[in-house]
């Protein structure tokens, strides 16, 4: 199971390391699109866009389906959400920690100001 996850996360993070591919995901988040639509939107050749979509597809971030002569792309939601979920959980831990730290910092700051005035 861990192995399976690891390979998946590897592929996902590699796929997300490219700005165009992140743009494609953002675009597909708004609406499904064909590879031709995407190539036009990102001012790329059809071949170039096919490569990007293929990387995203291998990472499970995008699914494609041939409808007639057009290849439709849509977001493969679950994996993206899983990764975002982990990051969000980790962020929440730090957020909770830092909220507590904030209180202590405030307390020390007040104490120093008071002590400073009393000297």
């Amino acid at each position, binding site marked *: *199971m861990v192995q399976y996850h*690891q390979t998946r996360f590897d592929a996902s993070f590699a796929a997300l390391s490219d700005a165009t591919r992140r743009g494609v995901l953002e675009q597909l988040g708004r609406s499904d699109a064909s590879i031709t639509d995407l190539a036009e939107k990102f001012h790329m050749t059809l071949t170039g866009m096919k490569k990007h979509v293929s990387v995203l597809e291998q990472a499970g971030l995008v699914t494609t389906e041939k409808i007639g002569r057009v290849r439709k792309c849509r977001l493969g939601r679950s994996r993206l959400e899983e990764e975002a*979920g982990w990051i969000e*959980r980790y962020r929440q831990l730090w957020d909770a920690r830092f909220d507590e730290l904030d209180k202590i910092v405030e307390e*020390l700051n007040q104490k120093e100001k008071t002590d400073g005035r009393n000297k």
Partner: protein
Amino acid sequence: MDAISERTNIERTSERELVVTRTFAAPAHIVFEAWSKPELFKRWWAPKSIGIPLLSCEMDVRTGGTYRLEFGHDASTSWVFYGKYIEVIPNARLVWTNEEAADGAVTTVTFEEKDGKTLLVVHDLYPTKDALDEAVASGSTGGFGEQFEQLDALLIALGAIPVER
């Protein structure tokens, strides 16, 4: 410049690194104090919302000094995290190892003061890409019960793998 977000930001900045940032409304020496005195540190490192208390906290914050943190509800089911401070520059920088796991991260915390505020950056550098992937992957499999507790303990130790005693 209050545009600097006071929210906690987190980013995987490379294959081997995770970076957490937040700005605190106090000078660096105060924020540093809360990180380097055990009696203050233990008041915030394991916030209540996490649900796992810090049973003990020993820290000798100086270059070459060690730390030992024990989490859990009682001593028989606790997790121990330990390591060494490899660099300590008062009010500016803390670097420690996470030695409970063979491929634990090296954590660097920097305190950058600007206009009376402090930008805090927590930087976890894993020895390999696989080690960080594994920390992320194990985080994603956690669901509930004991697994959740382990995950929490895992996260508390900045993604290092817990040692069960």
